[in-house]
Each structure stands twice: as C-alpha cells, then as structure tokens.
C-alpha cells in the first residue's frame, strides 16, 4: 500500500520508480483544513520554522502579526470572527471537501461514504494533516471492503480503531470557527506534554522567533497568503 502523495514522489524519480512492486494499492493522504484554517508552514532555506511549542504548524495570523511588529497583546486582538471571516477561514469546509473528494476519486474510493461516517463524531482531524482514529478507520474499512471483501469482519469491531500515534500534537479549533461547524472549540494548544492557551502560545512563538531572528530571514510560506493577509489584516490593526 502506498499513500498518493508518496506515490507522486516515487513516480517522479526514476530510481524510486523501479522499486515499486507490480501490484500496489494507493490510498489518499487525508488533508482537511476546515477545522484549522489558520495553520501555515513557514520555511527558511527549506528548513521548517517551528512554533513556540516546537512543532511545525504555525498560526498564519500570528506569523503575520510578528513580522509586522505587532506586540503580543495586539496580535491577540486579531483572533476573532471578523478576522476569520475576512481571511476566508469560514469557506474552508467546501474548499477542503472539494480537494479531498478529488483525492479519494483518484484512488477510486468513495469520498461521500467516508465523510458521512467520519462526520458522526464532529471533529475528525487533530490538525490539517493529522486525522483522528475514526477518519483512518473509515478509510481502512472502505479499502478492506474493496480489496478483501470476505475478510473485513474484524474491522467492524467497535473497539477496533487503530492505535493513535497522531494525538501528541493538537491544534485547537478556534471557538468562532467551531461554532460555524456546529461544535465547541477552544484556544488550547498541545504538543506532547507542553500546553498553552492563546496568550501563552503567542508569547512562546514570539520568543522562539526572536531567538532565530525571524524578521531578518528570507522565508517562504505554505500556503502563501501574504498578499491577502496584508490586504485583510493591515486595516484591522489599530481598529480592535
């Protein structure tokens, strides 16, 4: 079995391509940013810049605030519904759905069946590309149904969820966004045993970025949203 995103890399490299077995099953990489639309990767010379808790995901709003020399307290004022709306965070459900549906279709899997199942419990992602066990279980069931239809009984056991190796990093679903998604949210980050509320998270990010002199580095962004952020966020600064 091979993940579609990994397959793309393998197919683009002649040496790797030769290592592929004749028969393989492609399964989708689950990326879904509707719960965490503020997540952004930043890189300097292809090296990822960590957040204040030491993980790879950063807050797009916080990065912009830091680079535009807002204080921590000023940056916190940007975390509200008006900002999220203007940044398009509330449109992420349909964007994520469209992208993931395409990924499923490319793997000959039924996205509709999968999303109906995973939605039952509300949130199904710890972060943009860290699915919760239910999301993986529903995917595994569908693959098993398709590939080994006579042997799927064990997957239907209620406690048959896979062991969870992804819950060590939890990005919060911001309350304003959660509300739009019919669930409750919070501003509590967790990376391993490190925890932070919004104020603490912002402080620790600022301290961490001060140490590496982030403002003086040439950085790239994924997603690259700087142009839109400047247009949307600049007018909000000082108004809040």
């Amino acid at each position, binding site marked *: 079995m091979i993940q579609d995103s990994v397959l793309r890399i393998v197919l683009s490299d002649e040496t790797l391509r030769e290592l592929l077995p004749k028969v393989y099953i492609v399964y989708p990489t689950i990326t879904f940013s*509707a719960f965490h639309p503020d997540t952004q990767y930043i890189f300097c010379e292809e090296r990822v810049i960590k957040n204040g808790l030491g993980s790879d995901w950063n807050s797009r709003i916080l990065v912009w605030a830091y680079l535009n020399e807002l204080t921590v307290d000023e940056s916190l004022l940007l975390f509200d*519904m*008006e900002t999220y*709306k203007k940044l398009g965070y509330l449109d992420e*459900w*349909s964007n994520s*759905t469209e992208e993931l549906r395409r990924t499923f279709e490319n793997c000959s899997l039924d996205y*509709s069946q999968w*999303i*109906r199942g995973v*939605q*039952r*419990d*509300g949130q199904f992602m710890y972060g943009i590309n860290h699915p919760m066990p239910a999301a993986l279980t529903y995917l595994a069931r569908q693959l098993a149904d398709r590939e080994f239809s006579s042997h799927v009984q064990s997957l239907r056991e209620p406690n048959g969820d896979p062991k969870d190796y992804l819950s060590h990093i939890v990005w919060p679903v911001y*309350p*304003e966004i*959660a*509300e*739009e*998604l*019919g*669930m*409750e949210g*919070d501003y509590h980050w967790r990376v391993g045993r490190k925890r932070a509320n919004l104020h603490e998270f912002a402080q620790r990010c600022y301290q961490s970025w001060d140490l590496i002199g982030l403002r003086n580095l040439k950085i790239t962004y994924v997603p690259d949203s700087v142009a839109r952020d400047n247009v949307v966020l600049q007018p909000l600064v000082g108004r809040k």
Partner: protein
Amino acid sequence: MDHNPYRGLAASQYWRSGVAEVGPGQFDPVTSVKFQITSHDVVSTLGSCFAQHLARHIKDSGLRYMMTEPLLETEEQTEQAAMMATQFSARYGNIYTTRQALQLLDRANGWETADDVWERNGRYFDAFRPHVRTGGFTTIEELRDARVAHLQAVKRVFTESDVVVFTLGLTEAWMSTIDGAVYPTAPGVIAGSQDNSRHVFQNFSYPEVLSDLLNWCQRVREMNTSVRILLTVSPVPLNATYVPRNVWTSTTYSKAVLRAVAGDVAAELPYVDYFPSYEIVTSPQAHGRYFEDDLREVTSVGVKHVMRVFDRHYVLRDGTSDLKAPAQVRTASKIGDGQKISDVFCDEEFLD
C-alpha cells in the same frame, strides 16, 4: 422520453445533498420566507422556554425588541425578576400551549377566570405566571393589582408589534374544570394543590390546536392589522408527561401535532410564516450533538445554529442600520465557553 419528476430539483430537496452531505453546522432547512425583519420593526416573543433564546438573540442583534414591563428600580432586583422583565415581551412567563396563548388574549380583553390565585406557605402566586414574583405576593390584592398592569402591557405587545414570534412548546396542560382556564404548569407543582374536582388534565389534539392557533393568529391580526407572525416549534422534549406512557412517545405526539399545525396555519394565512428551529436541532444531520448530556436541553452550539439560520433569512440588513452582523452577536453570556445555556426560565423544569 420518460419524465422523472424528481430529476433536477433543488439540492435541498434531496436527502443526500440537503442533509447527509451538508457540512457540520451548515444545515439550513429554510428555502423561502414570507417576510423579513428590519431595524425599524418592533419584535415581540412569547412561547415555551426556547422562546427566550430567540428573545435574547433578537435583542443582541440590535433589533427593536419589545419589553413592555421593564424592571423598575423600585422593584426587587433578583435574577428571576430581571429575566421575567427582559426575556418576555410582557411578564407572562412561559406560554406552552396554544390554548394558553388564546386565553391570554381573552384575559387581556377582560375575561376573569375563577381559579386564578394559588397559595403556598401564606404567599400568593398568580396561577397564570407563578414565577412572576420571587416567593409569591404578600397579599391577593397586590397580586391582582400587578395583574391589571400586566394585562394592559399584554395588549400593547399585540397592538404595537410589527412582528410577533410564537414558539410552540406543548400540547399537554392542566385546566380549570370551572371555566376551562389553562395553566402553564400543574397546580401543586409551584403553589396551590391539585384537586380533581377543580382541575383536569388535557392533552390537546391536532384539531384543537389547529383551531386555537388559527383563532389566535386571526385575533392578533384583528388587534393589529399590519402584524406579521412567525411560528416555530421548540425542539426541547417534554420534561414529564401525565399520560401513562413513555415521555418520549408523548414528546413525539406533542411535537408532531405542533409542527403540523404550525405548517398548516402558515400555509393558510399570508401574514404567518414558519421557521424550522425544531428541524435544525433535531435533524439527524446534527448527530444528536445539539442536545446536552441530559438529552433534553439544547446546547449553546445548537442554539447558535438556529440563530444563525434565523439571521440569514429573516433579518434584513440594509447597511444603514445599527444591526449587528451575525458574527458579532452573542446570544447568551455563556455561549462559546463550552457551557450549557441554563439561563432561561422554565416552569416545566419543576415537574420532576
């Protein structure tokens, strides 16, 4: 070529696209409205406990919410008194049944009922709004004086409102055997004592509720020829049923009758519309998440979903008014903190 009448309908008309695959929090069963509310309209509310959520939201939205009996500085400043004054357009408390609503008009127009004061521990309670005074009134005269002023305020609610929002709650009620007066709660629950010779239980049928609601709407319209009425059904299940059967079976009966009547009345009267609060909270699309752990109270997230849909369709923002955008509206102080909304006032809570 064969014609399939179900081909090419709107997305909301199919289960898959209208419910099953709608994103969480995005379910919106409203497809058209008869009217919209502007910043100039005066809006009043009445009904079951759930009506108070609408009342608060309407106020917080910047709409002109009618409060005919505000809390005066000279009055007791208890939380209960404040809620009575601010979460009801007049201090009538919960109006659970359509018969109770109809009789509210009768009483405002001079109908004097026989069994209307309940006593407990030397204090007196208005049988039609037993929580209006914390701990009851000291004397019957004081109670009656307050009622006279209250019923004048009730008249104002119906004659001066541009829009009246009525949340239908129950079909079960207790009434007087003497004159058929319907109470919001059973005698003996808060005050008084249940007596088979004076009180009788009634579970109103579809024809009775239909007749009462049609009558109520028409009479409100006679009092105020430009009023528009918005009907909705509370999604909160019964706390207890007096019918000897499971409370859930009684709930489905009650809600089915109310929902059907509301739809039929809205279909018949051009100035009446139906808003699906009930559907939003109880839809399978919510996967039961809009109910608290007691499986009865509606979560703050569920209430907010209802209000978001209400705002989207019924509130007209023309850009020149003071109306707040939905994103700015906070329906209740606790919303968003992961706590349940318990700050609504419900007579029904005292039944178990």
